[in-house]
């Protein structure tokens, strides 16, 4: 079954991939071991999980400005998520996505995106159209 979610128009190319979801916030500096490609902050709900080539679905940003450079650096080494979906992006995440040409969207019409999408769902993210297609085996 495919669910179509609409959101604010975003940044980056149309991509598809598997969702990794948490009701938690995000900072590339605070939360990641960017060499290993995993969440490394023990308090993060995705601690220990790989973010490589998945579509991250999270609440909002936390902390500092380093993520703007780090998304570009992660993408250049091909150890990066395919896209990041958020309830509300902050300026740094958007600036980083713009430089890295990473797909990013936020502000979903139907509410909390971390509840609308489950880990393992197959997603098609179209930032220019502001649309995310969700294919779930569980619903």
């Amino acid at each position, binding site marked *: 079954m495919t669910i179509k979610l609409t959101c604010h128009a975003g940044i980056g190319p149309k991509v598809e991939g598997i969702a990794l979801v948490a009701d938690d916030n995000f900072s590339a*500096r605070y939360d990641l071991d960017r060499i290993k490609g995993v969440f490394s902050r023990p308090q993060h709900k995705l601690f220990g999980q790989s973010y490589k080539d998945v579509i991250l679905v999270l609440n909002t940003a936390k902390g500092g400005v380093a993520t703007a450079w780090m998304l570009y650096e992660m993408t250049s080494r091909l150890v990066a998520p395919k896209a990041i979906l958020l309830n509300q992006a*902050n300026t740094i995440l958007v600036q980083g996505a713009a*430089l890295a040409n990473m797909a990013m969207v936020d502000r979903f019409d139907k509410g909390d995106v971390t509840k609308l999408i489950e880990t393992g769902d197959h997603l098609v993210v179209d930032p220019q159209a502001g649309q995310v297609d969700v294919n779930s085996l569980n619903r």
Partner: protein
Amino acid sequence: MKLTDKEQEMLAGKAGPAVKWAMEHQLQVGRMFDAEDMVTVSQAHMMADPESLGESGVQFTEKIAEDGARVCIPMITDPRGVDLAWYEPLGQTEQMADLERRFIAACQTMGIMMTNTCINYQTIMPPVFGDHVAFGDTGVVIYSNSVCGARSNFEGGPSALAAGLTGRTPRYGLHLDEKRQATKRYVVSSNPQDLMEWGVLGATIGRMSGSYWEVPVIEGIEEAPTSDQLKHFGAAMASYGSTPLFHIVGITPECRKLTDVGGKMLNPTPVTEEMLDVLKQPFTAIGDPLDVVVFAAPQLSLVEMAELANLCDGRQRAETTDVLVCTSAQVYSDAVSMGYVKQIENFGGRVLVGTCFYQQYAREIGEANGWTRLLSNSAKIVNIVGGYGYQPALGTMQACVASAEKGVILS
């Protein structure tokens, strides 16, 4: 977005490929935040340490410089990741230092002033009320917005560079009056004295506030805090909440009265001692052996350097506990001439110039030196370094010095 003739020319490449990139970047960001036009800015401040940049970020910056880019407004830099006068003893490699050298060279080619500081509002040129700026470093932005009354969004390194090249930034977020109104209201019942306690209060409010787009207004601060107190308060709030602006009733310039920022309509949330204790609890480790004490995040002011030097005077750190102090070059030279650096060095501490600990390949230097248990008086730094493999603990400056002396965490 509506662009002026000059901006249209930049976008068309008439000012060169670097400025064209900068305009394109800014338009992408501006459209996502529904900016209607651009606003000119008086200064830019760029965060860019080599760990964040990596090889690709340095190459990107070098390419921009090679394309003939020159900044058109005063542009300064956040702390570096490598103190080129002292990096091998810290466990940093020649490769890290080389990335740093290449980045510095590219910046200098573009006319960027390598101030390497996150306390530019204390040492370089504070923005003035109503001044539109493009600042990076969350601590710089929240202080400039809140205490100075300037107007800046968090500008990451690429966007700050773009602003330096175009002299403008998209007009969204905190450049707009309506986005500076309070959205959350907190009531403080006791006023902190120590810098660490100011950081804990800021962190607690930041964590509750919880989003870049929330603006806390705070009641109950009875006396004007010092610049250093607000520095730690704001830096911690920004770290925990991604918060770029706060108001304190009767203290900060946009909020003489609660009604000035729309606070009367908001439900007040008390900030209790219990809440502050909850924030501190994960960073309590009394009796644990201590690997390293860090004074940084933000860099220390001259007043903090004097206080630290006074605490260190006549004492000696334990052999098993390293002590690092990060300050700016501007403060360092005064701290040398006033004898503060000597007092800290006699204690066994090392003063790093133009860097900040968490921006210095924190994971790699921790592994190289065997540092796990870290103690600091910065609520910001203890929030950051957990992801780098540290077990951080929080204490006052006095407790940090006393713990370094004994080699164990005392309180």
